[in-house]
């Protein structure tokens, strides 16, 4: 199986007999194998489960072009940035339906579990299926999470214990009858997150234990499938501490005491049907509710503001798409989406905001011999309603195109694509008390990509390689800046970015007899330049937090009932301010190891994360946890 080519062959999974900590993965959904046109990287079934990973962020960090921003610890916010477009340009989709957050536009990857997933794929620009919803065209990069469809009945339980007082339990029941299949999956985790950190330099040797970094969550998910019908119910409830940056203090007396509660749930359903070979429809519907409370109003908080704020969000979404394929060489796709979001918060000078977001798309795909063309035009319309102090922003409507051209010959495929897309200002950007700016313009991205890939498959061997060069530019970046001559900050359109980069992936698999060996590598090189102000000293300097070079390598070895995975990730130096050459985040190497053994119905696994115990950061003064161990045992009937 070629994890990085996007469309895998299923035989390998059965043969390898890989197991994750719970399931025997004896099936892999096979996607009809069209020659790849989109730029995609994917991790499927056994590979995904063989990775040492607790959240989706851990899987995505091995993809080329991906930067994860992580505030450290299990509870720390984890967001993904692809090819330096910014987290808000990355759409994350579960079974084709986008996870949204109207308030801030980003998805905390830490809230989603890998254990119920069949695959995680990253598409730069569009996925390019024949029949897609309009919102699938509406982000700069898209992450697709595909839920696993059970093929047998089973019940399994798992218990895990890990470093920093971490305990996790999970129960999964799944069934498959008469074409229906489904599962219920419940998980509980509690962690103190009291990891040690050390800052050591010429002028500092700070040793400490992370405090107020605990998390406790419940996650309950259920899904039901039949043929073209899929549905998913997801519920996540958590409480966590919100630790601050590690700064100079004389003692531990004044630590951050802020706490955050989340209660999120969504229900979604999707139905697709092909009437004849010429007609296909796709309907999606989703309801989401999110609650967030942030509180620092405690007796022990004697030194900072006593805040107790609540935020409520509701979101209703529906879409309809239709694809028409009159000839073998031509197909057309139209789609319409509507989303209605509500945001309520008990902030001063803030009232309920409603947003109606409508999208329509016309797309077509054509092929002639090895030559293929895909083109789409997306129309988006946003209209807000509010009685907030400043009034609603003006409605926003825009057309944005994308074009992809591909050519395949023998094992080779070549592609070129262009996509222009914007992100609308979020409700926080526009209306947040004393920060929001209702005059914001959308933040535009333009992406050009030129790529090639090669695939080779035999029963014992498979190999693939892919190389993409790209140029991205971002205009009217939405950033928070102080207002000149005041003490107030506000969201503003400020900044241009110009990025040239290269992503490469090489992967291979060799499976002689009882053994399987697979290797997945990725490499990113990019120059991501600030083109905001030609007069400024930071003009043409790299964008903060953006590494020029990063690479990852994952090796998986399987022998009968044993699997061992070693993953190594190198991320180069990143600057975090232009003010001083010392303001850099040091390069780091992260090595994760996972060993899994299966005996009859029981599976045991040992994970070691950050084997080298490197003390590194994604955000200055937010230390990562260093080396940690997790041991888990599961049993299934």
């Amino acid at each position: 199986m070629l994890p990085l080519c996007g469309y895998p062959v299923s035989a390998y999974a059965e043969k390898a007999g890989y197991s994750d900590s719970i399931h025997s993965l004896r099936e892999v959904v096979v996607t009809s194998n069209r020659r790849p046109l989109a730029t995609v990287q994917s991790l499927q079934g056994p590979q995904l489960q063989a990775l040492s990973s607790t959240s989706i962020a851990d899987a995505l960090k091995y993809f080329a072009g991906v930067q994860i921003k992580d505030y450290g610890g299990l509870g720390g916010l984890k967001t993904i940035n692809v090819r330096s477009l910014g987290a808000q340009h990355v759409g994350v989709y579960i079974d084709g339906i986008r996870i949204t957050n109207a308030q801030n536009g980003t998805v905390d990857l830490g809230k989603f579990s890998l254990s119920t997933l069949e695959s995680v794929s990253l598409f730069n620009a569009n996925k390019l299926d024949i029949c897609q919803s309009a919102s699938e065209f509406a982000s700069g990069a898209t992450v697709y999470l595909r839920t696993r469809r059970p093929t047998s009945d089973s019940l399994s339980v798992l218990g895990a214990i890990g470093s920093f007082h971490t305990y996790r339990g999970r129960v999964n029941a799944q069934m498959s009858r008469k074409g229906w299949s489904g599962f219920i999956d419940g998980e509980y985790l509690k962690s103190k997150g009291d990891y040690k950190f050390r800052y050591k330099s010429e002028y500092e040797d700070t040793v400490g234990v992370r405090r107020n970094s605990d998390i406790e969550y419940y996650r309950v998910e259920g899904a039901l499938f039949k043929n073209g019908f899929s549905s998913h119910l997801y519920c996540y409830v958590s409480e966590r501490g919100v630790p601050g940056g590690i700064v100079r203090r004389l003692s531990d007396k004044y630590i951050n005491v802020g706490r955050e509660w989340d209660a999120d749930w969504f229900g979604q359903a999707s139905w697709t049907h092909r009437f004849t070979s010429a007609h296909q429809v796709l309907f999606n519907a989703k309801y989401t509710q999110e609650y967030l409370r942030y509180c620092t109003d405690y007796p022990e908080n004697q030194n900072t503001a006593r805040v107790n704020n609540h935020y409520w969000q509701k979101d209703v979404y529906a879409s309809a798409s239709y694809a028409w394929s009159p000839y073998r060489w031509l197909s057309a796709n139209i789609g319409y989406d509507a989303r209605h979001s509500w945001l309520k918060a008990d902030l001063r000078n803030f009232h309920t905001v409603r947003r109606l977001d409508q999208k329509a798309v016309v797309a077509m795909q054509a092929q002639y011999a090895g030559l293929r063309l895909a083109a789409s035009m997306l129309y988006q319309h946003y209209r807000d309603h509010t009685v907030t102090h400043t009034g609603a922003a003006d409605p926003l409507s825009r057309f944005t195109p994308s074009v992809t051209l591909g050519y395949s010959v023998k094992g080779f495929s070549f592609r070129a694509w262009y996509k222009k897309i914007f992100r609308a200002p979020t409700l926080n950007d526009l209306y947040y008390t004393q920060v929001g700016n209702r005059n914001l313009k959308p933040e535009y991205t333009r992406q050009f990509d030129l790529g090639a890939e090669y695939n080779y498959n035999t029963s014992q061997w498979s190999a693939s390689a892919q190389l993409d060069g790209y140029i991205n530019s971002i205009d009217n970046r939405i950033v928070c800046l102080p207002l000149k001559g005041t003490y107030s900050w506000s969201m503003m359109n400020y900044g241009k970015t110009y990025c040239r980069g290269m992503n490469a992936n090489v992967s291979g698999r060799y499976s002689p007899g009882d053994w399987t060996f697979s290797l997945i590598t990725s490499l990113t090189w990019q120059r991501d330049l600030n083109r905001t102000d030609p007069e400024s000293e930071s003009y043409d300097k790299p964008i903060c937090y953006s590494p020029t070079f990063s690479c990852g390598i994952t090796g998986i070895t399987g022998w009968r009932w044993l699997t061992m995975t070693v993953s190594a990730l190198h991320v180069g130096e990143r600057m975090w301010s232009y003010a001083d050459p010392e303001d850099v985040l040091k390069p780091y190497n992260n090595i994760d190891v996972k060993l899994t053994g299966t005996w009859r119905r029981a599976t045991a696994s040992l994970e070691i994360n950050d084997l080298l115990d490197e003390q590194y950061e994604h955000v200055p003064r937010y230390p990562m946890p260093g080396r940690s161990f997790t041991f888990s045992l599961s049993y299934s009937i």
Partner: protein
Amino acid sequence: MKNFYLRLFICLLAICSAGALHGQEKIILLNEGNWQADNGKMTYFENGRVVSNQWFRDANGYKLGDTPNDIIQINDNLIAISINWSNIVQFITPEGKAVAATEDVPNNRKLATDGRYVYVSSYGHECGTEKGMMTFEKGYVAKIDVNTFKVTDAVEVGYEPEGIAYFNGYLFVANTGGYAFQEDHEYETTVSVIDAATMKVVREVDTRQINLYGKMSQSGQYLCINSPGDYYDIPAATIIFDCKAAIEGKDDDGCFQKLEYASTYNCTTTDGKFYAIGSRFSYYTSEYTFNYVVLDPAKVLESYGADGVEENFPGTVLADLKGLTMPYGIYINPYTGYIYATDAGSFAEAGALLQWSPEGKFLGRHRVYINPAHFLALPPDGHLPSGIEDIAADYLDDNTIYNLQGIRVEHPHPGQVYIRGGKKYICR
């Protein structure tokens, strides 16, 4: 070529001798850095060049801390710095050497001194004192003994007290109520007057203007207090406050005059006026009104705001200020009259320090660090106070001796300028 080197040599010589001539410029500048990034830095600037942008670290081998917020000189050998997010009041020598530090005053904001004690305003609710832990519902002012570096007393004022000044035995504290946007209380409108000896609030002057937040400058008996308003219905304003009137018990309205200007960044001139620059911004319109004004406090109060506001900045100062990307501080060296301002630029870049001669001739732009904001000039001869030529200060009729900052002096130094009975004299 030879000619070139000769010229270069002459230039260098000229620069050196110029340095030697005005050779009295010793400026400490606090760069706030980024919040929670532990990168507050101290710049030391002497005679036209930046000696170091991490002067504290150079002198002590460790970092200053997170978000330094104010700096004052207490006596010849001692300087205090409030490092807000580190919850530290740091004491250093004028050479930058750390002497003591205390975290007894968490969320400390601004500093004032009478030469014997340091007074610190705090948004916090508890204070570790010699009498034990004191807790307050609102904010407070703490009194630190500079012999022991212990807090001797503290007193509750309004919510989120910011600017603090010492005059003639009393402390004047501008209350903001700045957390009103998050907490369950309203903005404050008062200036608390505290008897510094007893640490009791003796009166609260209601300015009827909310959120007295920002830099507060003092010129003798007068204070220049900024109010950013709420950025919605209440626009920014400046309060010119008369400490003497407040002590003398005049009614509230007789103690201040409100002006329709923002003084987001302000400083005291050597002739007792205030420079005030700032903008009045409204979220309704997203529009700015900038102002760059010179305020004469005595005239403003006398005329009830009708007079005493001018735009007569010396030389190119006004034009240069208008060209700044993001003004972040303004200062005049009280000993020499040299004018300084900082530009925070785009906030991810190093800020800049700009310098002008007292006549307003632009002298240079220097690279400092992120968010350069708070200034302290060191006395050229190392003695506090020293040779200021002129200051408007005819506010006393007893024989108590004060320095030019309005601080009571017990033992005047020979050769220095002091004020006694409302008149300047040179101690012999």
